[in-house]
């Protein structure tokens, strides 16, 4: 793998620790806009350059949704512009702006419909940074709903960012270690989760640690609510999501061993009780049709 690909992979992995995948995708689109404006190249080389960047983004470890799908849409539009000999920097910038608007409006609609899933008296479990934390929970608070959040502590960076958002929005919360959740099943009412992608074989790609929590909540019959934009429907299977395995040598008390960690968890969709998209709640049954409709666009 080349050096540039490695650098971008690492940057994306770092960013999704503190921003939702949608926010990271927005940062990606903004970065593309600036990069294209600053790029010095002739119009005839423009397609090549953009495809180079688009391919790099589509090959990240893990795959970055919804940006991955937005790149597929971009590729298609670029191809069409090129065929009509209308490909200029300006036309690419216009496409990127329209992709940004789409991402924003999808998010707005999902936040609006999603915040209705929070009701007075709710005690909601959250784990990692996703749209539900960045936008949906603050939105419910603004609407005057009285609820409490149970934050499952991860690393200081991710949990720190969650606490900052909750504190800024004056949302009541309690923080516990992930393994302490067992003591709260009498009190908690819901688990809110986001995902980085929904694979075409119906697996969710989530932050590390999410799988345990979902399994535990499923066993204890706690409703699990997934917030998912349709732009996160991946056309790849779970095995092809470029989930990164990091291994390094460690040592304890003179014992040397290989320590391995994966960048993401994989969770079966069937464990989820409610799937909320910008198109409203969808059932597993009508998911296939919706996916086909979405994938056709790419």
């Amino acid at each position, binding site marked *: 793998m080349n050096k540039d690909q490695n650098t971008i992979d690492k*940057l994306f992995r770092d960013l999704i620790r503190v921003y939702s995948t949608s926010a990271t995708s927005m940062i990606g689109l903004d970065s593309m806009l600036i990069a294209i404006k600053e790029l*010095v190249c002739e119009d005839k080389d423009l397609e090549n350059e953009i495809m180079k960047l688009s391919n790099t983004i589509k090959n990240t470890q893990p795959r970055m949704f919804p940006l991955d799908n937005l790149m597929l849409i971009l590729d298609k539009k670029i191809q069409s512009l090129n065929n009509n000999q209308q490909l200029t920097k300006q036309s690419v910038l216009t496409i990127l702006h329209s992709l940004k608007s789409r991402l924003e409006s999808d998010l707005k609609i999902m936040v609006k419909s999603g915040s209705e899933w929070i009701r007075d008296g709710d005690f909601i479990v959250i784990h990692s940074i996703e749209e539900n934390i960045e936008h949906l929970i603050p939105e419910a608070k603004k609407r005057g709903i009285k609820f409490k959040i149970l934050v499952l502590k991860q690393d200081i960076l991710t949990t720190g960012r969650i606490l900052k958002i909750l504190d800024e929005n004056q949302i009541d919360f309690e923080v516990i270690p992930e393994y302490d959740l067992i003591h709260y099943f009498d009190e908690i009412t819901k688990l809110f989760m986001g995902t980085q992608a929904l694979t075409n074989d119906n697996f969710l790609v989530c932050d590390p640690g999410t799988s345990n929590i979902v399994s535990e909540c499923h066993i204890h019959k706690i409703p699990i609510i997934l917030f998912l934009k349709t732009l996160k429907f991946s056309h790849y299977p779970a095995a092809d999501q470029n989930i990164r395995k990091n291994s390094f040598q460690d040592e304890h008390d003179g014992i040397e061993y290989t320590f391995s960690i994966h960048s993401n968890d994989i969770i079966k969709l069937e464990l989820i009780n409610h799937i909320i998209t910008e198109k409203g709640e969808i059932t597993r049954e009508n998911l296939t049709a919706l996916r086909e409709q979405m994938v056709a666009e790419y």
Partner: protein
Amino acid sequence: MDGMLISIFVFLMVYVAITFEIVNKAVAAFSGVAILVLLKVISPHIPSSHTTSGGHHLPSAIMLIDYETIMLLFGMMIIVSVLKESGLFTIVAIKIAELTRGKPIKILVLFSVVTAIMSAFLDNVTTVLIIIPLIIELTRGLGLNPKKYVLSQIIISNIGGAGTLIGDPPNVIIGSKVGLTFNQFLFNMGPPIIVIFFVVLLFIWLMDKEEYKTIDNNIVKLFTVNLLLEKIRYDFGTARINKPLIIKGLVFLFITILLFITQTITHLPPGVIAISMGIFLVLFTKTNIENILEEVEWTTLMFFVGLFILVGSLEHYHVIQWIADNIFSSLGNNPYVNVLVVQWVSGIVSGFLDNIPFTITMIPIIEIINGANPEFQNLLWWALALGACLGGNITIIGASANIVSIGIAKKAGVSISFIEFMKLGAVISFISLLIASLYLIIRINLIF
């Protein structure tokens, strides 16, 4: 044993311990003081009733300390601590990173300007503590070689610090002990330092023109820059930013500098200005003094106190007078020889030994030479200051900022060896000292 011999022996032992980092600098200096007190070479009390068996007064350790220098350092450390707590430095560093837009030449120039200014008005160690991690993150993320940028900032920090009274410990010591004002430093040290800054920057660029070439034809690299800036904004921007504290801190820093500049009118010593402004800043901002005092570099202050006592003892027992009479008197009264020897000796010695004890030792020697040659005016002080500050770039151990920066870089996975540092540092020191010599020669020609 004779007080003179014990003083020399203890001083040399302490110097060896400091140079080879056998123990902490402050511990070494205070151990030396303890030995002198225990062997009754110096007294722990105020003089008058304490005498040696021969009936002579013992020098009082307390009276040998230069409180003016300690107050100036302590006061500036308080002001810097408050500004650091406000998040001001983080904001400045992130803004600079954004302004560079990932362009290598802009990274070199803008960071160098900020490093030089920060080093001139704050201390060099604080400056590199803020700049080095950021420049490593930025350059590594862009696929550039962080080593070159780290080296450039260390070198620039030592050059910038030489420009003002408060920029580098040797200047603080010279200014306080000799009674030179902030303006005298600014007007006498500022011009050569500005020239040296630009020449060195040009030299660094010429040495690696390819490295600093702008990348504007690689879309993937341009994309990476923007992602990277966002990451830096988050990583470094999560530090608490306290805007009211930034404003108050800047106002007090401005007043402090104003008082330094108007010293000839107010007749307030720099130490009094710094310590008063520092404590008023804490008072007006209601900053937690415990937190601020934790940030003060007590070991540095203790090191200074210990060294003042050790050198004071050498002075009391006429060792300094002996060095001046027997070594520097052979230079005669030729101003060119005296000034250039002081500058180059200071420069070379400071490259291999700690420049703080060296400066403290040299001050009484230069006072004696100056006493014999009043026509030299303050030229020998500028020669000492230029040599001691610029020589710090010769080796890794030449200045505290070098050691701190190399440590930060190593932690971040950027290893810089003694030889790698010296390859660039020694050449730049030679160029800097050469420019400083030209400046001093011009000044001598104007006087004589």
